[in-house]
């Protein structure tokens, strides 16, 4: 699913209480997975909250809501961010960042991030691809395409580096993209 489909989704306790809505998706320190979320309040006049939500506290990521056990699952936003921080990166929002191959080709700019919940009971939320506004290098300049990612991926707020072979597995829509990701990762494992 696209992260844009997750943001603004309500955070609901298993008691049925609507406690917040998702604001930002936070990449985990190792890359390749979602570490947690920052939250905003519900309602027209509500702004960002001081509380965040670690992925480990998510009971379920449903199509209409993010479920948590109770309000104790929330924790200070800063601790969620600190746990997801790595060293050396510039930090920031990757939407709008440039995607480069490791051979230096510009593939486009990120307009969305594709994630996939793997394992039963919301085991892990993997980042499996970027949706980018394609550059000339992909031959479909200006269109939105999906680029698969390796298991772990280097990401900073400025440039996102992907293996050059990712170009061969570019998809047009989410249907079938999972297979493209699997094939791409299998190819990388074969090379390694």
């Amino acid at each position: 699913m696209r992260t844009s489909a997750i943001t603004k989704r309500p955070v609901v306790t298993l008691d049925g209480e609507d406690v917040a809505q998702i604001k930002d998706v936070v990449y985990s320190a190792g890359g390749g997975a979602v570490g947690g979320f920052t939250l905003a309040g519900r309602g027209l006049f509500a702004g960002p909250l001081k509380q965040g939500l670690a992925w480990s506290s998510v009971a379920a990521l449903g199509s209409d809501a993010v479920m948590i056990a109770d309000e104790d699952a929330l924790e200070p936003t800063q601790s969620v961010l600190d746990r997801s921080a790595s060293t050396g990166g510039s930090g920031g929002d990757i939407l709008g960042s440039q995607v480069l191959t490791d051979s230096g080709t510009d593939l486009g700019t990120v307009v969305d991030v594709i994630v996939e919940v793997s394992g039963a009971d919301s085991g892990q939320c993997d980042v499996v691809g970027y949706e980018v506004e394609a550059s000339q290098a992909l031959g479909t300049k200006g269109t939105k395409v999906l680029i698969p990612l390796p298991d772990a991926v280097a990401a900073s707020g400025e440039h996102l580096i992907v293996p050059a072979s990712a170009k061969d597995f570019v998809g047009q829509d989410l249907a079938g993209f999972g297979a493209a990701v699997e094939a791409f990762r299998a190819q990388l494992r074969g090379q390694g």
Partner: protein
Amino acid sequence: MQWWGWLIVALVVIALIVGVVVAVQARRRRGGVIVDPADPAGSGPGSGES
């Protein structure tokens, strides 16, 4: 100015203030995808401000 003129002015001012507040808060609620949020200066719109 008639009393109803002042009333209209007051209502317009209130509507403008409410509109601005709603727009600002909607902008602050806007989401993103944050990586490496260690650098507070670079954490952008998703820095967890409150």
